[in-house]
């Protein structure tokens, strides 16, 4: 590695101000710090530092996403095989899914990181790592059939208008991945929901009894009082299938099991808040029990068992990976409890009573992103009030 380091140090002056490629300084710096941890030592304050940095943080979150991502790829192949009656061999299914989503993943990274690079250079900053996570999250929460050009437009919109205009990673108040998803949903609704977008048929004819609707969509539009759902092949789907994720949906978020593995990684490594996750689940359960207690034929989904609600749709994925985004979530301890609870409750509220589009998790997180600063403000203000009272009590 010494040789590589020498080579890089040799070309480094060309990327410094005044060098031939000074316009690529941030890009060079990004790749350099990717390869070699900077040798900078502390100049003021503490002389030693914790080993965790922004790069390690983002890599750990990516690691937590990996089970969902790999499972999702296999599941795309599996749903394709079920829908078309092809044999279900593990390896071909996985590669089918991998090649189905690879263009989307590449599109998201190229467009998002490209904008990051340009903005970092314009501002004279180092390249920030935040988009490493967003870039994988975005395809995972979209239907497999999303065209790449739509994704590119949405990513560009989200990165520029939800993040860079506010100052980049750490200053955005809305979750970038969810803004991308929301942009797609409102700009191209026909491609974001319905029966035709969640299963990749690859032009093959479907088997008899085929339905491409997700379990959540079936329940929301189903017969009042009935809670039976079917898979793409028309056969019934059990709660266990929902737990393992063997159903169609936005491809990264179907498997509750893989999401739990991701949650465990995030919580053990201390990268996400357990307070938000727990209060989110509690909020969702509370709302589900309320909805279930007053179940109405007008809103068929309220008949579903409250615990099964947690397995449906993107809720679990949203509460583990979206709600816990530290930049856009509440930053105070008390605030996190309130924030998580409200996300859970609002997600279920939308799911129950908005039969047109029952997937409420995305909108719930975005809504609470907007309210997070207000919640924090109230919490911090109570601390200020306490200090003021103490001052008054002595004077």
């Amino acid at each position, binding site marked *: 590695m010494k040789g590589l380091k020498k080579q890089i140090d040799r070309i480094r002056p060309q990327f410094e101000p005044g060098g031939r490629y000074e316009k690529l300084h941030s890009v060079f710096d990004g790749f350099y710090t990717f390869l070699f*941890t900077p040798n900078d030592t502390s100049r003021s*304050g503490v002389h030693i530092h914790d*080993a965790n*940095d922004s790069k390690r943080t983002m890599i750990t979150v990516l690691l937590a996403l990996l089970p969902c991502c790999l499972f999702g790829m296999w599941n795309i192949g599996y749903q394709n095989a079920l829908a078309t009656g092809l044999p279900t061999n593990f390896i071909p299914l996985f590669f089918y899914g991998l090649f189905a989503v690879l263009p989307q993943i590449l599109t998201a990274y190229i467009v998002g990181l490209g904008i990051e690079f340009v903005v970092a250079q314009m501002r004279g900053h180092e390249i920030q790592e*935040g988009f490493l996570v967003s870039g994988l999250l975005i395809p995972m929460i979209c239907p497999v059939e999303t065209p790449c050009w739509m994704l590119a437009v949405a990513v560009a919109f989200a990165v520029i208008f939800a993040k860079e205009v506010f100052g980049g990673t750490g*200053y955005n108040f809305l979750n970038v991945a969810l803004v991308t998803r929301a942009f797609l949903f409102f700009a191209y609704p026909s491609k974001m929901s319905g029966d035709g977008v969640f299963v990749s048929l690859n032009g093959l004819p479907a088997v008899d009894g085929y339905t491409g609707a997700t379990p959540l969509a079936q329940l929301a539009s189903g017969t009042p009082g009935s809670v039976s759902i079917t898979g793409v092949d028309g056969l019934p789907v059990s709660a266990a299938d929902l737990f393992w994720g063997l159903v169609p949906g936005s491809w990264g978020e179907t498997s509750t099991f893989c999401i739990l593995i991701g949650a465990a990684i995030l919580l053990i490594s201390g990268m996400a808040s357990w307070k938000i996750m727990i209060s989110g689940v509690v909020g969702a359960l509370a709302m589900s029990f309320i909805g279930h207690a007053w179940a109405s034929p007008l809103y068929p989904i309220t008949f579903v068992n409250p615990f099964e609600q947690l397995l449906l749709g993107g809720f679990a994925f949203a509460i583990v990976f979206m709600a816990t985004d530290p930049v856009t979530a509440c930053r105070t301890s008390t605030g996190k409890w309130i924030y998580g609870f409200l996300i859970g409750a609002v997600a279920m509220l939308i799911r129950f009573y908005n039969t047109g589009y029952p997937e409420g998790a995305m909108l719930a997180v975005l809504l609470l992103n907007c309210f997070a600063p*207000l919640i924090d403000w109230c919490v911090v203000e109570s601390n200020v009030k306490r*200090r003021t009272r103490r001052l008054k009590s*002595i004077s």
Partner: protein
Amino acid sequence: MWPCTLFMLQPDSGTTEIKNTLYTDFMEDTIKIKKGLDIPMFGAPSAEITQDTSTTLFAICPDDFPGAVWKARVHPGDKVQRGSVLFADKDNATLCLTSPVSGEVTEIARGERRHILHITVRREGDEAEKFEIPDETEGLRAILQASGLWAMMRQRPFDIVPSVNAIPRDIFVTAFDSAPLAAPMLQPKDMSALETGLETLASLTPGTVYLGVRPDSGITSKAAQVIAFDGPHPAGNVGTQIAAIKPVNKGETVFTLDARTAVRIGRLITDGYLDTAALVAVTGSEVNNPHLINTTIGARLDTMLAGSLKASDDTRLRIISGNVLTGTRCSLKDGFLHFPYRQITVIAEGADADEFMGWASMSPDKFSVKRTFPAWLKGLGKPFKFDARIKGGRRAMILSEEFDKVFPFDIYPEYLLKAMMANDIERMEELGIYEVAPEDFALPEFVDTSKEPLQHIVRQSLDNLRKELS
């Protein structure tokens, strides 16, 4: 404003918990500090004490004593005694920094814009200035200021040398150092001088003198209220102790000092001479035999540390006068022991590490309070070898509640820091700037994923605020 009332019902999660331990020999309150971190490091000192007989050069560095404008009162070649004036404050000539030894002034080292870095004295003989001890408080204040011991105290707000006329609400003395690799602050022989010192301090304040100790330390006092602090660092920081006992409000002033200074005050009052002996813990992974050295305030490091260091090339070493969190970086060649004259830490500099793809490292030797590195599998308390690298690039704040876990104050550190960065004075006051000193932000700075220079930010804000308000 309904949301405020709603959330005020929930008090902030308690940072401290006060209980009365009735079953110890003497009555004392024990306060349990829950938030904090003991950084496990190699190089803890043994109890062995050696004498430093070879050091002849001693220096006083005025930058160790913020809040005054120090003017030199001696010239090179002047003869001084132990306790003679070296510096006096520009505005209050009674406030002095004094010579730690008797001998000849050899150098007044200056930096940019003729700013004085230090005044060096070569030791010859052992003559000492005799201070006449008066009975009344005003006289006591005067000799504390003249002897240089006043400058070894700090006041809050602002974490500066107390202004000469300040009447403190209370005085807080900490009798233990909880920072990484610190040695015990007091020796058994110091106890009677400590009590005299505490009595003297009690006469400076209409309030109370509080003495923070470890549980079961056996330290008692009639002049001060002894309060025991259990828990990890920063339990020994006087700021933590103030926050747990009686936080500073706007308009109030408290004095803070370590028990060493209280002992020196006691000795000055008892026999009229300034005690400048310093028991220094030489610690850190790059020290051969970490132990205690009996030397004098301001001792020159190369003679004091002769033979103690593992490497002879000091460019590869980070020599710190103090601990790794708040100490002053020194070079071996012309470095001196800095205030508070208790500890030297030597670690590797690490500037030649060239670590390949450190973000992917699975090394068990990387310490992190987050469990993103496998080192946490080693179990609690296993020591680590640290170097001085920052180990990452500076970023905006990303992770939340990082600081809160190591910051035992009823303050939201992130919000206070943001107010500081924005230089929003009103908000800083509301969020508790009068209660904090830079050292309170040392652990947050250590754990910070975004690698921001927090202590520097706090120091600048305190200085700006003081200017604005004066």
